[in-house]
């Protein structure tokens, strides 16, 4: 018996040391874990009175984006999220969380609705990126993302964005910034996937681990760059190990952010959101 207990202790110690100092690439892998809680899990666990909204009113209903009206901790809000599946069947229907233009247009419809009725917007970021495909290009993928960015920047309601998993490039950004940007410890947010970056710069996708570190894509890196406001710690091994615990903290943080932003003057919200985005970047003024 003592031997079993000793082995269990050893295992625990090993687990702790393994997860104590994860590399960027290891975090990317956790962020993509099939069992990691998805947007719909958060929607079910921390929101109540959920009314899901469908369709972009122009083309179709993109299941890669979930949109809803809901209540969180007494705050009535609009919710947008990237929606991945839990299994192959779901993932095919939801295109692995990669939205087409109609997905972003559905998101925009709900942003306008939130603006119209003064509902704060909560977004849940979890996508490998906007879908690169023939139809997506034909229907204006770039146009949909650009319009979503412009619309989001001018919403006269509080916007709280939460990175729960993958933050893949423009497709993530389209619903992925606001007055507060919160990230889970093992989520990532990046301009390009480490694999794609490695295959462009090194002509070898196998260099992804190295590139992931260079790209500064972890929550800690992004706090350092002034892009992310706060980090939510995860249980040892990742959010999927103890999802209930994670849901509790996420609810608390969203609620706190909404509380802090509640009652803010809409003009001031738009102004300060602009100032916040405007300040991001590092440049050399030069002599000219």
């Amino acid at each position, binding site marked *: 018996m003592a031997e079993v207990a000793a082995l269990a202790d050893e295992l625990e110690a090993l687990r702790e040391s393994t997860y104590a100092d994860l590399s960027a690439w290891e975090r990317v892998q956790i962020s993509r874990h099939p069992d990691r809680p998805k947007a719909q899990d958060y929607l079910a666990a921390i929101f109540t009175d959920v009314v899901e909204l469908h369709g972009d009113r122009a083309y179709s209903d993109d299941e890669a984006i979930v949109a809803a009206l809901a209540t969180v901790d007494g705050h009535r809000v609009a919710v947008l999220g990237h929606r991945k599946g839990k299994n192959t069947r779901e993932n095919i229907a939801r295109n692995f969380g990669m939205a087409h233009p109609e997905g972003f247009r559905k998101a925009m419809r709900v942003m306008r609705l939130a603006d119209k009725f003064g509902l704060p917007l909560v977004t849940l970021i979890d996508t490998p990126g*906007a*879908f*690169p*495909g*023939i139809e*997506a*290009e*034909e*229907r*204006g*993928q*770039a*146009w949909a*993302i*650009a*319009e979503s*960015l*412009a*619309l*989001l*920047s*001018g919403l006269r309601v509080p916007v709280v964005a939460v990175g729960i998993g993958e933050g893949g*490039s*423009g497709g993530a*950004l389209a619903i992925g*910034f606001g007055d507060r940007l919160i990230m889970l410890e093992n989520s990532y*947010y*990046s*301009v*390009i996937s480490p694999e*794609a*970056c*490695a295959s*462009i*710069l*090194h002509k070898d996708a196998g*260099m992804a681990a190295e*590139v992931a570190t*260079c*790209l*500064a*894509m972890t929550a800690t*890196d*992004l706090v350092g*760059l002034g*892009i992310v406001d706060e980090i939510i710690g995860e249980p040892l091994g990742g959010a999927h190990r103890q999802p209930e615990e994670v849901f509790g903290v996420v609810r608390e943080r969203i609620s706190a952010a909404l509380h802090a932003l509640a009652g803010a003057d809409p003009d001031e919200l738009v102004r300060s*959101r*602009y100032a916040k*985005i*405007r300040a*991001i*970047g*590092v*440049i*050399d*003024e*030069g*002599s*000219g």
Partner: protein
Amino acid sequence: MSISDWFKAREARRYTVVNGERAAGSDVPDGVWSKCSACKRIVYEGQLVENLRVCPHCGHNFDLTAFERIGVLSDPGSFVEFDAGVGSTDPLCFTAAKSYTESLDSARERCGLPEGVVVGRATIGGHPVVLGAMDFRFIGASMGSAVGEKIARAFELAIDERRAMVLCTASGGARMQEGMLSLMQMAKTSAAARRLAEARLPYISVLTNPTMGGVTASFAVLADVVLAEPGALIGFAGPRVIEQTIKQHLPKGFQSSEYLLEHGMVDEVVPRGQLTARVTTHDATPCDGVRAAARRARSQAGGTAANRPHNEPGACGRGRRPGR
């Protein structure tokens, strides 16, 4: 001279005489002839310059540098650059096959520019505008902190001075060497474009070859009128990425200007020679209305329109006016 050299020389001369445009012999000084990448024919540089760098044989648009583009579009001598020294640094100390600092240095040396975009005040057909042009030679005119900042400042200047905005884009997308700082420039420039729209000022973009990724998916397509040069590659994801993802060959002409026109994504495909005239037409109509409104507002309030909030009456040509 060996016997084979003698034949080689004769060969070259024969081509020079028979097909004038194919004369690219080594006895011709560099820079006098250029080869068209589309029809592979050789074009006399002088003729190319006169033709705004459009191939006289097949109509292919040669790439323009930022200053060539500005020269094509703006009234002679009217362009005054601002933020000329602004450039990117290497905030992430990014090193892949070669370091970002090295890439920046070599791009600066090669192009004589500190960054991939040039912005300034200018007039086009007499209309005061803020004009920007991207230079694809500079790391693919990818958008990092400095490009985003210069574009955002350009929008802000246009709002302050109530000028129309004209941007000529060419870019591979976001500059991955600056990581998330690059991605956030999409939000920054889109937000700035939205403010220009709120100020009811016209914005015309000219999409040139190639305009891709994060630049297309932000300020480039947020214009009131989106023009494209013939045959330009314009899109979000690159053709290779799409082919690899969907494992299919792409249709002919996919992501070309003409294809986008057909799919309702751009207003017009305009040959380079007609661009100035086209921009002037689009600029004149909305901008005259705005300027008239701004003048009215100034005379009513005795202040400059630039200092007032954008939603105040008078900022909009068709807006409410006090006393109505």
